[in-house]
């Protein structure tokens, strides 16, 4: 099993309230698949991705990724884990503003021993000509493409995408989805994409549906549609 989640609980203390962000989640994920975590705002998607990404910790339960039990890792080991296995894509791109496009890509290329060629990756996302620009000189869609290149260049086994299209218009959103689909196919990268947009779920191999922190659906999508055909 590539990713194994068992009885995962996570809650947050806000003032005197305790919010259960994830309640007893259990599931197994396979390598190389495209997963969509679907759910309305506040359902626990980000929390799940953060725990998988080693940025946040579970309260109880097990999360084993590629043989590593995340709860047993200290913060240094988690850093190494992120650096070796993961790519991140966020809703607000989170490029480093003082670095150029190419440098942003190099910033993760630096972390991996067997990464991909930055030029090739930037060409795939169509940003090679813009490699010397700073993030503020780019549109949102362009920035997200750079973020994708940054995640892909180190050839991670998993890419976690948290609302990657949330801040983009329809056209740009589709282009981003297409890229993610291509990457999944071309490099066999496991992609876990969190979104509240049900239309996107149609392109996944498997849907993980959350509601108020509970796993309400974990089902194969018998006929994933290509990204080009996703519409909303």
């Amino acid at each position: 099993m590539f990713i194994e989640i068992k009885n995962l609980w996570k809650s947050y203390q806000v003032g005197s309230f305790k919010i259960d962000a994830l309640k007893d989640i259990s599931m197994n994920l396979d390598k190389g698949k495209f997963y969509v975590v679907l759910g309305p705002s506040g359902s626990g998607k980000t929390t799940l991705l953060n725990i998988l990404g080693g940025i946040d910790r579970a309260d109880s339960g097990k999360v084993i990724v590629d043989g590593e039990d995340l709860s047993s890792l200290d913060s240094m080991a988690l850093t190494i884990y992120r650096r070796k296995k993961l790519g991140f894509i966020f809703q607000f791109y989170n490029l480093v503003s003082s670095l150029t496009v190419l440098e942003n890509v190099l910033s993760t290329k630096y972390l991996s021993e067997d990464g991909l060629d930055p030029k090739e990756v930037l060409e795939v996302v169509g940003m090679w000509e813009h490699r010397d620009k700073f993030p503020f000189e780019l549109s949102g869609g362009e920035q997200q493409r750079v973020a994708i290149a940054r995640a892909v260049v180190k050839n991670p086994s998993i890419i976690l995408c948290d609302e990657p299209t949330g801040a983009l218009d329809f056209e740009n959103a589709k282009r981003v989805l297409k890229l993610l689909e291509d990457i999944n196919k071309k490099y066999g990268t496991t992609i876990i994409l969190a979104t509240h947009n049900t239309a996107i779920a149609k392109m996944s191999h498997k849907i993980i549906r959350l509601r108020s922190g509970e796993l309400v659906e974990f089902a194969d999508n018998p006929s994933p549609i290509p990204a080009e055909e996703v519409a909303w």
Partner: protein
Amino acid sequence: MLKKIPLRIMWRDKAHFIGIILLVFLASFAYAIFSILITNIDTNYKNFVKNYNQEDFHFTTFFPIDIETLEKKYNVSIEEKFTWDYEFGDKIIRFFNITEKVNKPLILEGKLPQIGEIAIDPNFANSNRLEIGDEIEILGKNFKISGFVSLPDYIYITRNENDMLPDPLRFGIGIMNLEDMRNFLRSIAYRYYMVKGNISDFDSFKAEVNSKYNLLSLQEKDENFRIIVTEMKMESARPMAYVISFTVMLISSILLFIVLRRLINSMHAEIGTLYALGYNKREIVNTYIMFPIFIWLLGAIPGGATGYILSDPFTKFYVSFISVPVVEKFFPLNDLFIAIFIPALFMIPSGYMAIRSLLRRSVVEIIRGESEKGFKSKFRMKFLDRLPFKRRIMIKQGLLHPSREIVLIIGVAFATLIIMYGVVAKTALSYLVEDTFQNIFKYNYLYIFNYYEKENKYPNSEPFNMLSFYIKGTKAKVVIYGIEKNSKMIILKDKKGNRIELEGLVIAQSLADKFNLKEGDYLNIVNKIDGREYNIKVKKIADLYVGNSGYMTLDEFNNTFNMEKNSFIGIYSMNKLDIPKENIVSTLSKEDIIKSFRDSAQSVDQMLQVMYMLSFFLAFIIIYVLSALVITENRKSLGIFKILGYKDKELSSMFLGFNNFSFILGFLLGIPLFNTLITYIMNQALKDVDFSFKLQPTIRDILFSFSYLFLAFLLSRYLGRRRIRAVSPNIILKEQWE
């Protein structure tokens, strides 16, 4: 409502602001304590000199002079003074009679001595646990100590004219009435004439005295070590005090400018919103100008007040070192006022300049925000592309903010200057003791006779001759010695450590340094007694750093200065000799000298500690504030890098690594800066004084200073890394919640 902003932000960004406040504190403190000290010493010294009629010069003659005639002719006051050394055990009290016209004694405590009473100097009294009212027996007669005294011509109380340091345990001065003194005056009695007043034709005065009464010696005030050392020390303390406080202020104001500009840039959106809400520019400027005002008030008032409070003990401590009788305490309010207000002159304009950029921008521009624009093409720095990623980011980070690196460089350079000053002074002192007195001056005792001798009848000793000159056109005194050709007592060596074959004139390196003399140059000197001029070629320069001195062989010396062959005035000896007291003018034991140097090294140690603290503090604060600034403004990037899997160590070297270069550059700049300052002090403040020290930093001094400041650097780096560790990726994650 807006009023709350500055203090809140200062509290939030404590790391930046507390550092600047501490620097302002330091600047005000340093200014207050030094200027109050200087005012106290200066005023007391001037009052002392004036009210107690300090001499302008004194002289000795073979025959008694006619005081009244000379006074009338040259319109000066002249007074005769007798002196007599009372020796007991290894101690000496040099007694003078009480004078009334020139060099009047100042009673610091107690009363002027009546018949059967004496007054002594308080340092000797302290060191020997003598108190007012105690009785001491002097050659069978009991004397009561009536008080503590200070003499205007013996401010710096040294036994021999050229001793560099006082030795209050074994040498002190005292006064008694002439009637009492007469009982002790014998052939060794010493009488001289003290003169107050200006003589326009000094040469004819000397000539007249010489022809009528046979002038034996004459010493002007500004070549009198016992008077001039104090002024000299004051003069060299002054630039140090001002340089320290002004540089610290300058550094803190630049630091404030940087921090404030950064802050305002990061708050553009908020400021824009304030505009939108209807606040006008004036109100906004009035809000932000409170930053420098708060910093100033929080730093300068406590700093000035602390300096003011501590100035009293500090003055006491310093006075024991500089030996000025402080009779009256001054608490000059204007010094305090300046100490508190000067920082405002630095901080408020610097703060205003940081805010001014806001005023020039249109409201729309401000609202649009600024944080990310400004990465113009020049920041791409494509020339760095070939470097590995991490190093490239590190260099970019530095080049992006040259002003910060400049402050860091200046700050470190200045810290280097301060610490080197302390360390080098300390090394110089111990070099003198450990090296010069062990390896160059081999003799253990030195005796100077009353009259020239021709035959040396003491074993294990060597004769020498000496004469005092001044360098033509200056007041600098030079002593030239004639010693045996292959002397076993004085081993002169060149820079490489090879013994110098004595031939022609060999001068000390310290003399060469001071007057920029090279081998082959001519030294133009004037005999202090008879005014004869000599022009002597400098054959070699010896690696010797004590005093303005030169050496020749005894034969050549006597020949050059027209003295009888083989005559000599003193001997160097390995053993203590039993020479009748009435035959010698002075004795010197090397052990005593070394001991007094060691003692005084302790007071140097205290100064050194202050300098250690100051330089550490300065380097640490500047580096720390700037690192904290970098970390705060890059919080978001740091968060992203952390999520991507960067380790804290890597981030610290990427974001703070450039400081390594700036630190080293600052240190390297500090060395020539130090040399310049020392040259200045040596050449200006101590120009006319027979005083020299080897103040070139040795490799060890440099290494030590570096390691020490590096410690400050490491500490700030450690704290910086802790701040980096504390940055949580949550800054990024928060945005994802919505």
